[in-house]
């Protein structure tokens, strides 16, 4: 068996029809997909959230809810969550131990990886979404969807993507709505036969590029080889993607009307842009094009995304973070946080009103949104929202504070990442530096 045929059969396992196509289909079809999908979506924004002290005049502009007796009440920031309360938990008191000692806002890179920062030569490790993609990726046309408002990979400590491969290589985030739509739903050109021929050609081409590339590799020194291996890995990955496309060739891409999403939005209008990105993730899930998505909604030093809050008349996110303690600072940062929550609430609500199985789409979709600072330069007590996934055993409507009143008593963020992966049947013995699972979140 040559390498190419091996690839084909390796990715050819357990092919299933797109989930919702089945739902819409006949009874026999529905019976065939008794098992509901398990989805995962993570969203990140930098520079922390508004965290005024409990006695502060502007407490109501804080991210974290206000505790009232046995219960709690959302602040202005999370007002939009009120109708969705039973689907949502707010989480405080988690942080990555590896991120606690490092520069002010430099922790977006490790939000989903928990990797240890080793100075200038920092190399990341696999992100939790890619572990899930490895397990579930073969079931869908795309193993995962990696989005970013700034696009690309950025640089270590200033990454513009949340997702990292098994070897810690950043996966570029897609930022252009039209490009994302075309990848997911575009027909491309040509008939099935033409596409089959094209994919066949590409498959041989990549195979031969791989072979010929080995001889060049021998001529390179050690340092060059490390770089060169990124290229070789990319060739290998794209070979697999071509093989996967060949498997999916006879299954048409889901039909989604271009008009159902506003693809002409520009990042100059951040609220509309962010909503489009949420719509694209929703459509990708709804059509079962993928079950795993990450979205770096905003990145530290992101040329584009740092203007988001500014375009809303609030100053850059960096200024909002640093100005939090100044007069009127918390309400300003809180207003920005409120915009973020409103966007997320819209996304969650869409999934909550989309029926799936006996419940709704959100019950089969875990959504994590947050940031990895609380106050300026304080890499503790991440402001987090965790929603959905009740079919995977989560219970919501709660506000959890995991630390014991002291920043240094934070629980590892990896405990949450592990819990999510564990409930998704991806891992059962811990993720990175996790020390246990968060049973409090579960039924």
């Amino acid at each position: 068996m040559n390498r190419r045929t091996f690839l084909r059969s390796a990715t050819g396992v357990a092919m299933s029809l797109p989930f919702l196509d089945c739902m819409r289909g006949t009874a026999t079809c529905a019976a065939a997909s008794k098992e509901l999908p398990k989805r995962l979506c993570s969203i990140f924004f930098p520079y922390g959230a508004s965290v005024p002290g409990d006695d502060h005049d502007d407490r109501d502009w804080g991210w974290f809810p206000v505790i009232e007796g046995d219960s709690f009440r959302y602040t202005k920031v999370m007002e939009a969550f009120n109708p969705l309360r039973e689907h949502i938990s707010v989480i405080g008191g988690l942080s990555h131990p590896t991120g606690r000692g490092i520069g002010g806002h430099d922790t977006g890179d490790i939000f989903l990886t928990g990797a240890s920062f080793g100075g200038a030569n920092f190399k990341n490790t696999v992100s939790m979404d890619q572990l899930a993609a490895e397990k579930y990726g073969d079931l869908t046309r795309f193993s995962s969807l990696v989005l970013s408002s700034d696009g690309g990979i950025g640089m270590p400590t200033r990454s513009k993507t949340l997702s990292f491969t098994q070897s810690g290589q950043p996966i570029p985030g897609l930022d252009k709505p039209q490009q994302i739509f075309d990848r997911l739903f575009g027909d491309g050109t040509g008939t099935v036969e033409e596409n089959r021929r094209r994919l066949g050609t590409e498959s041989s081409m990549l195979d031969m590029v791989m072979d010929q590339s080995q001889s060049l590799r021998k001529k390179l020194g050690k340092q060059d080889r490390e770089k060169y291996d990124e290229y070789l890995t990319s060739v290998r990955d794209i070979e697999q993607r071509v093989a996967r496309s060949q498997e999916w060739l006879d299954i048409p891409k889901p039909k989604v009307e271009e008009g159902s999403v506003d693809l002409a939005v520009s990042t100059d209008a951040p609220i509309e842009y962010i909503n489009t990105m949420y719509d694209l993730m929703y459509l990708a899930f709804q059509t079962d094009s993928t079950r795993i998505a990450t979205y770096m909604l905003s990145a530290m030093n992101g040329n584009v995304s740092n203007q988001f809050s500014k375009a809303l008349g609030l100053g850059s996110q960096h200024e909002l973070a640093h100005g939090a303690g100044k007069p009127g600072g918390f309400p300003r940062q809180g207003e920005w946080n409120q915009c973020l929550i409103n966007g997320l609430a819209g996304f969650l609500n869409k999934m909550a009103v989309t029926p799936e199985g006996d419940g709704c789409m959100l019950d089969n979709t875990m959504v994590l949104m947050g940031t990895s600072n609380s106050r300026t330069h304080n890499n503790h007590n991440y402001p987090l929202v965790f929603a959905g996934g009740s079919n995977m055993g989560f219970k919501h409507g709660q506000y959890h504070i995991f630390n014991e009143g002291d920043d240094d008593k934070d629980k590892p963020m990896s405990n949450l990442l592990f819990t999510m992966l564990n409930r998704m049947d991806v891992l059962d013995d811990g993720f990175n530096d996790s020390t246990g699972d968060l049973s409090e979140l579960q039924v």
Partner: protein
Amino acid sequence: MRLLILRPIYPLAATVALFLWSGQLANARTPTYENEVAPLLNKYCVDCHGPDKQKNDVRVDNLDLDFVGGRDRETWHDILDLLHLGDMPPEDEAQPSDEERQILVEWITEEMTEAAEIRRSTNGLGVLRRMTRYEYNNTMSDLLGVELDYATNLPPETASHDGFQNNGSVMGMSSMQLEYYLKAAQYGLSVALVDGEQPKRYEAFTTTNATRRADRPDPVTNTSKIQPGNSFWLRMMDYPTTGPVTVKVKAHAVIPEGKGPPRMRVRVGLRPDTYVTGGSVGEDIDVWATEDEPGLFEFNGRLEHYPMLSVTPNFPGFLVNVHNIYDDGGEAMDIFRLRINEQYRELNDPDPEQPWLVVESVSLVVNEFEAWPPKHHTDILYKGLEIPKNETAYAKEVLKRFMTKAYRRPPTKGEVNDILSFYKEVRPVYPEFIDAMRQALSMVLISPQFLYLVEPLEEGKGTRKLTGYEVASRLSYFLWSTMPDEELLSLAKNKKILRASVLRKQVQRMLQAPKAKRFIEQFTDQWLDLQALERVAVNPQFYPDFNERVVPAMREESQAFFSEILYNDLSALNFLDSDFTMLNEILANHYGIEGVSGNAMRPVPLLPEHRRGGLITQASMLVGNSTGEDSHPIDRAVWILERLLDDPPSPPPANVPSLDPETPGFAQMTLKQQLEIHRMDPACGDCHKNIDPWGIPLENFDAVGLFRSEAVRLVAKKKGQARNKQELAAVDASDMMADGHEVNGAEELKAYLLSEKTDQFSEALVRKLSTYALGRSLEFTDRDAVERLTKEFKKDDYRLDDLIESIVTSKLFLTR
């Protein structure tokens, strides 16, 4: 007390201060472990963290001193943080003096900095680098002979810690990126190589201004006297979506006294959904022609670039837009837009106080070819549409010729055969020869030999001289951001390019070519971080008179300034201070400098009252390093240290507490006073006493780069008051440099730079230019080479083209 951190935004990797090279600091005495550090640890720490007690499991008297790979790197980091915070020793124990604490902090910081540098080091070899996004786009256009947007789907590049995008070690590769390289190649080849018959030719001609919409006339546009903001439209109802397009405009100008010439921009296409006009075709042109002698102007492009969605019947056909973009920054443009928005039903006469572009006729031709098949086809398939009997032999020769250009050197037999065997495999799948050929050529375009600037270096063999072809590539990507042309390749073939005299001649030739504009734009953008202008949004509540349209001119000023110094053999010390700057009308109006009209940048002599000259008082720097509401003295300081002196400060330590806004009277203080409070805390002061004095003297320049003597301060609201109040406070722009020099205001800062920092600046510029030329960061091993180049630079009266020649003929550039 909690302290405010006015924290610069710059990469963490910039921690790796390159001050090890900078003349000033290299001489500074660094404390040693044995004589100074160990005794202090013994005195203050070892009681609790020593052989007897190890509180918290920490013992500091036997820590591993290897900061590069040692086991205690993290512990040293923790110690540094605790020292910064003043958390250790605990309050009830004996405290080190400020000087003692500083010794510890300095020693640990330097060890860490050096270790980071060593960890990143490649022994001066650099690493394999691929083309940047813009280099790829230029190269594809040159190689295929068709200008398309090849890079549109590629992820954006990031800059290295020293500010450059062409640094191999930070450039990534991913499967998605490779997928888009393949798509771009297939797309490019589908256009560059043509099938069969020549496509139909389309043409249109008009002498009257069309209207954009079909349902009603545009109220103010349908005149041929085009005032600034207005356009002349041509409509073509039957049109193709691909092919070369030529627009010819016959026009003259009417220029009122004291105004500049109208500037003409031609755009093609219109997205009716967003009203966005298509991209520009060709370059903008200032029109001086008179009614007696009207000018004929030609613009060339390709239709593939432009949006032509025609989905609503209100905007039928394909539109060409001849726009007068003259802009003095005044109200004329706004008033014009207002008139359009208010849907004036009646035609208004164009504004007589503004320069008009009088359009006499516009013609449009699509799909005109000098020959068929076109040159871009026969440059690759040299037999044109003919396919010889022996297809395989022809394919082999085509590949050989193409690969010589694509790989920037003749391919080896093995390399040609690799591609040829792929061609043979797929040939039977395709009915047409040309389709199989397109696939084979696509394979060349995703090969590492094309995407990367390969300079093989065998493991353990050390450095070697570059081959002629490798030198030609380095040179071409340095000065043109694209592949070498035929002349460079032929000089590479006969190895003449390795001679210094030939290299110098080539540098001069290349700098005179239009492609050198890419070097000027890319280098100045990356060196001076001109992109910063895009990151700052000026708050209109603070600057109601500010006109966003001036921002592009700010970037152009710095680029044109660099260009002026380069092409006129001026001293690079003009970057520190100069008696001229580059202005056009809109920017001159913004600065309040009179007598400049028109959109073109030109050198303008400066008077003392203009308070300009040099880079640090250019708006690109002042605005780019502001918050959009106020100046940002620390960002400005860090910019000077990083960009002009190549001496970036370490980033602030983690977990440094914020300044307490509850400090009595804090909000009412001037920024300088706030910073002084900040500096009083030793944790911040150690570094900030070296940083702040570089930014404070520029406090007289506000967030839009204009001179001020008073600045707005926020007054905290009192209980019961609804909002914060603002008040004006006098600006204090004086500060003391770390070496004791008093500096008051921008002019004194420039004088200080010129008298005290000329050497450091010239070395920094040598380093920046070399870093860009080499596509890698400089390292310890490059120190001597930099020193030699700096000496030559000084000897050459700081002339940039001499410096470029010196770099290109240096061992640094010619070896790997």
